[in-house]
């Protein structure tokens, strides 16, 4: 059993949980993820690691309440336990000692981006950031990022905070104004990563993305997380989760993400009474 030490609501859809998980905390690196089961009958779901504390042996996860299992997770409070919490899974991000990097965090994608940018900054890289969301209340971690990011640009779909528009508009504007980046690290909804990659490809600007597909075991055994990268089938759990954004077949992955939509709606309605 894995004790929940703290739980904070970041907004009405997103929560942060600090879990005591010694094996994960001792070895995890930016880019890696965990799989958890809320209770004994639960489904296995992958979540990215936002922070870790080796000394206290804790791992911080940030998740958006999107379906049955995340709703169940959200019902747990500090002092409760999670049935299973396995990791660290996936390969750590390959972080390069570049001059200057820009991170793009879309919605809850800011969470896995945080440890990557923090580490880059510790390596002496100059880090800029674009945070994007539908509206102001869905922007997370801005204050934490501000501790080490040189410039932070916020975009919202409805213009309730920062610039009205998409993260891609902001990136385009920055680059056209002459900002020189060695790499873009984009983490967020698939559609966002797709359009960031489409934008940066003609510029030949290295773009790294982190994928979070449907998964069962997370160790390479099931193959449910397969994705086409550069024309080849890869397993996100053992080959990723980070890939060259220019090589990923996003359309295929978006279709695969929707595989269990009907079942998800069904169980939410049946077990949670959601409309």
């Amino acid at each position, binding site marked *: 059993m894995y004790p929940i030490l703290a739980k904070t609501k970041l907004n009405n859809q997103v929560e942060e949980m600090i879990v005591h998980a010694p*094996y994960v905390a001792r070895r995890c690196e930016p880019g890696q993820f965990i799989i958890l089961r809320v209770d004994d009958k639960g*489904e296995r779901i992958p979540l990215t690691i936002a922070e870790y504390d080796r000394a206290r042996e804790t791992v911080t996860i940030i998740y958006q309440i999107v379906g049955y299992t995340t709703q169940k997770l959200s019902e747990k409070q500090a002092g409760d336990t999670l049935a*299973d919490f396995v990791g660290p*899974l996936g390969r750590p991000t390959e972080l390069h000692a570049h001059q200057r990097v820009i991170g793009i965090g879309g919605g809850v994608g800011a969470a896995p981006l945080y440890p990557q940018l923090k580490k880059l900054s510790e390596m002496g890289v100059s880090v800029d950031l674009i945070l994007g969301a539908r509206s102001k209340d869905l922007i997370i971690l801005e204050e934490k990022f501000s501790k080490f990011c040189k410039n932070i640009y916020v975009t919202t779909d409805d213009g309730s905070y920062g610039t009205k528009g998409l993260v891609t508009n902001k990136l385009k504007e920055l680059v056209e104004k002459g900002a020189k980046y060695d790499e873009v690290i984009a983490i967020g909804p698939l559609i966002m990563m797709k359009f960031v990659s489409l934008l940066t490809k003609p510029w030949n600007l290295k773009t790294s993305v982190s994928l979070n597909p449907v998964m069962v075991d997370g160790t390479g055994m099931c193959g449910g997380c397969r994705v086409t990268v550069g024309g080849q089938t890869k397993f996100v759990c053992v080959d990723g989760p980070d890939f060259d954004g220019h090589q990923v077949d996003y359309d295929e992955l978006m279709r695969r993400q929707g595989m269990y939509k009907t079942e998800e709606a069904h169980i939410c309605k049946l077990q949670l009474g959601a409309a």
Partner: protein
Amino acid sequence: MAPNMSPKKVPIPEQKPEERVKNFNEVALGYTPEQAKEEAARCLQCKMRPCVEGCPVGVKIPEFIKKVAEGDMGGASRILSSDNCLPAICGRVCPQETQCEILCLRGKKGEPVAIGRLERFVGDYAMENLQEQPPAVERNGIKVAVVGGGPAGLTCAGELARLGYGVTIFEALHALGGVLMYGIPEFRLPKALVGKEIAAALKLGVKIEKNVVVGRSVTVDELFQEGFKAVFIGCGAGLPSFMKIEGENLNGVYSANEFLTRSNLMTAYDFPNSPTPLKIGQRVAVVGGGNVAMDAARTAKRLGAREVYIVYRRGEKELPARLEEVHHAKEEGIIFKLLCNPVKILGKDGWVTGMECVEMELGEPDESGRRRPVVKKGSNFTIELETVVIAIGQSPNPLIRQTTPGLETQKWGGIIVDEATMKTSKENVYAGGDIVTGAATVILAMGAGKTAARAIHESLRKKAAAVA
């Protein structure tokens, strides 16, 4: 007592095919004590004991059967469990027809003694009726790590615990059992039974660390730093193979591993009571001809598919699955498309709609000794489907190989061992089961676990003696 000279095995009661395709309950129901005694009396208690030679863990078969014939089930269980810590499981899933039973003298004129059914009977009987306490063993304080809680690891751990070692099993999933839990379906091997038999086998106080992926959560070298004196790697076969044909990433295409793991370990057959879903179409094709393919096909039928096909590129004789499994599959209405090979999975809007196949014919024997299937030109045809399950094998998981310097592996990724001891190229590291052999049987993995346990004991004892 005069032997029972009937040329046939005492039949084992089974659920009728038309009933069982509607449930996940066990197909074979097991012998009653009377039926077991009657079957046990067919054993001639011959001097040569050829059956024992065929058993990878060397169960004293005639001896335990004699006890069953005498009605001494406790005695039978003690003999059986001294060599096999998972008898109820092995009685169900061992390929007895190619191991012990094939060597039985009675098989020369009629059917061999039903060793598997008797083993299952004794295993079940012990679980329900006997409360055997394990003998007290003096703990020697020496720590051994076992990586993987499947058949190989469980056997190795059980043996070492009996010898007094402090054993810890590191399991990547949230449940012990490996393929017994995620792979073999409930209707062939009930999970409650697996859990109970494993608990009994580990009664001697084996420590279990679930949710630890060796190679990610901790490395083999770190285990030594933590004070383990030897490490046994039994992490299983690993990554599912795909055919590398067009359409394999369409929605509705599963690896057999994923399909069976969702249904077995995650109990997707009980959705929405269990939150893990599994998509099943009206028409399902399972590609492959082994036991895993049969399990997937029969699972699909139980999940409500109307038509289920086995698509296999060789002929009936070449099917690698056990005869019993093929027989059960046919009884349940699985349609066998033999000498048939997929070339393309067809789809619309991202979902499977069918599979294009070609007919095959058998040519000259290949390296495996089996006749090589050759494509019949122009024989392309299409089957309409909603679900495809690929059951064509798997390759070893690279996680341990990549993170354990000094561990030598085959070109295909399997760990290289000395077969007499299961010792690897790395000091104090042993390995066994599918990670060494490639996908094989439960009992072979158990045999490897047992061999390794003895070799570990031998080696550590020598070292202890040298120090003293």
